[in-house]
C-alpha cells in the first residue's frame, strides 16, 4: 500500500501551488485517477484524510474523478474503452492493442481555495 506516499505527494503539490496564491485556505483538491495508475481510490481517500492532519490542507476534501482506460484500435483507427484492464482489446472488432492513450492518470487537476 503506497497510497499514503501518494497522499503526501498530493499534499505537497497542492500546498506549494496554493502558496503561490498568497494567504488562502484550500477547501478541496481535485484529482484525476486512471485505472492503470496503480492507485486504489478508497485507500487514497482514507490516506489523504490522515495525511492532511496538522498541515495547511487540514479539513480539505479530495475529489477524485475516475477516468476510463482508452486504447487505440489500429483496426478501427479509433480510441476505445477495452472490456476491462485484463482484456486490452477493441470492444468492437476484438483487435488486441498495446497502445494505451488514457488510463495512467494520477493528476492534480485543480484546487478550490477560499481567500
Amino acid at each position, binding site marked *: 500500500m503506497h497510497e499514503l506516499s501518494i497522499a503526501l505527494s498530493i499534499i505537497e503539490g497542492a500546498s506549494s501551488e496554493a502558496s503561490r496564491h498568497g494567504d488562502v485556505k484550500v477547501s478541496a483538491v481535485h484529482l484525476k485517477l486512471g485505472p492503470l495508475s496503480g492507485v486504489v481510490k478508497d485507500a487514497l481517500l482514507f490516506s489523504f484524510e490522515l495525511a492532511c492532519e496538522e498541515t495547511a490542507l487540514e479539513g480539505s476534501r479530495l475529489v477524485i474523478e475516475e477516468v476510463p482506460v482508452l486504447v487505440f484500435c489500429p483496426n478501427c483507427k479509433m480510441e476505445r474503452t477495452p472490456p476491462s*484492464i485484463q482484456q486490452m482489446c477493441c470492444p468492437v472488432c476484438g483487435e488486441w492493442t*498495446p497502445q494505451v492513450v488514457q488510463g495512467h492518470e494520477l493528476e492534480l487537476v*485543480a484546487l*478550490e481555495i477560499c481567500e
Partner: protein
Amino acid sequence: MNTAPRLIEVRQNVLKKNDVLARALRQRFRDAGVCVFSLVSSPGAGKTTLLEKTLTELRRRCHVAALVGDLATENDAARLARSEAPVKQIITGTVCHLEAAMVEQALEGWNLEELDCLIIENVGNLVCPSSYDLGEALRIVLMSVTEGEDKPLKYPTIFNTSDVAVITKIDLAEAVEFDLKAAHRSIQSVRPGMQMFEVSAKTGQGMDEWLELLQSRIAETVFRI
C-alpha cells in the same frame, strides 16, 4: 475573507517530482552509455536468484552492476556479491517500492562511465512499484510457475506498465501442473505483444535467450554514444 471558493487549475502529475528525477536519471544513463534494467515481481518469484546468475554471466562480457531494494535486510546484496559484480543494497525501511530519489542516492560514489549495464531489483511487490519510474530503459516483470497462470490478470497494472515478462522456475512447471499456454494468454491479454521468456536460473533452461535479450539491449546503448 471571502467565503465563496475559487477554482484554480493546476494540471500536474502528482508524482511530478519522481518523474522529473527519473527523466534526469534516464538522461544521465544515456549520456554515460549505461543500459538500465529494472526487475519487479512478487516476493519469492526468484528475482535475486535470476539476478545472481545473470550478473555472473554478464560480468564475463561487460561491466555490470546492481542495485537491490529490500525492506529490511542486506541478505540480497550478500548473495549477489558472489557474482563479484559491484552491488549496493537500498534498504527502504517501511517503503514498499523504490523511487527515483533512492536510485539517485544509491548511485553516489559510482562512476557511471565505467559501467555498461545496471540492473535494479525492486522490492518484492506487484502493486506499488508500478507507479514509480526509476529511469530504467526496460522494466522486466517476473512471475514464477508456483504463483499460478493468472497472476497477470490479478495484477494487470504492473504487467501493463512493464516491457518484458519472464516466467521463472520453469523447471518446476510440470510438478505444479503449470499451464504455460494459459499463462501466455494471461500476459498477452493485459499487455498485447509483450515479449516473454521462460527460464530456470537453477537448471539454466532458457537462460541463453534471456541473456541474449539483455546483451542486445546493452550493445545498442553502448553503440549509441
